[in-house]
């Protein structure tokens, strides 16, 4: 299992514009496997991204939209993309100019492989 996690993170990290990727334990909000560029602290990103994903999922369920598959946060200088994978989350931090379509596709693929 740890090989699959590492491979998923490694594959995502190699996408152009990706600053880091990690697999996070959804309930605890702590990283399981992480590859982050220098200057990005995986712990806080994992905690906040998982908390945000959980709340978004609650909102979607309450609104009758069903389960959330991916969540994308757009900020001034970059993006955070989170894909649900059962008890795990795939979290990707990308530059503003990253190829978002490819990043989202790879994040979804990784989530499907882990779910």
């Amino acid at each position, binding site marked *: 299992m740890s090989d699959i996690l590492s491979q998923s993170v490694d594959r995502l990290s190699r996408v152009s514009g990706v600053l880091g990727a990690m697999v*996070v334990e959804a*309930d*605890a*909000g*702590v990283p399981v496997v992480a590859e982050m560029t220098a200057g990005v602290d995986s*712990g*806080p990103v*994992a*905690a*906040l991204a*998982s*908390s945000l994903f*959980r709340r978004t999922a609650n909102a979607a369920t309450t609104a009758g939209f069903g389960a959330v598959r991916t969540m994308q946060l757009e900020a001034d200088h970059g993006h955070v993309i989170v894909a649900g994978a059962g008890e795990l989350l795939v979290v990707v931090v990308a530059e503003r100019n990253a190829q978002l379509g490819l990043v989202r596709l790879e994040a979804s693929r990784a989530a499907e492989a882990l779910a």
Partner: protein
Amino acid sequence: MRHDDLPRVMEALKPPIATFVRESRVRIVLLISGSGQVLAQHGFTRSYEVMNVASLAAAAHASAGALAEMSGVPRWKHLHHAGQERQLFLAPIRTPVGELILVAIFDKESSLGIVQLFFEQLGNTIRLLPEFQQRDGALPTAATFERDLEAGLNRVLPEAGEA
């Protein structure tokens, strides 16, 4: 930490503890000094609960420290117990005047990662408080534990003396 410092210290701790509770969404918080003084609390309604948790937290902290030492690990960052409904987080905050112990209890509204994150911020804020900058020479001892516990308890829960 001297007896007469206690009101000032407890007042200074109110804002950072309130921020920690709000941001981390924990249900219960207790902050005690290494000698058992209750410095801050949130979520407790009965004095005996505070007293019990303070005593057990101090004991757990001491046991974990001894275990770490025996294992060749000089320090530990935190203890975490994940129950089905609620989770317990117990961690030391090291300051220039001594060690504090934080106990936090949280449920599904929060997560270990979130509690860890805001615990780090709480520790950094407390270490910068003037009240935690100077050592007054009064080192806590086991003999002062009960007296300090009572003193802190009477301040965070005024009805403690009647319980």
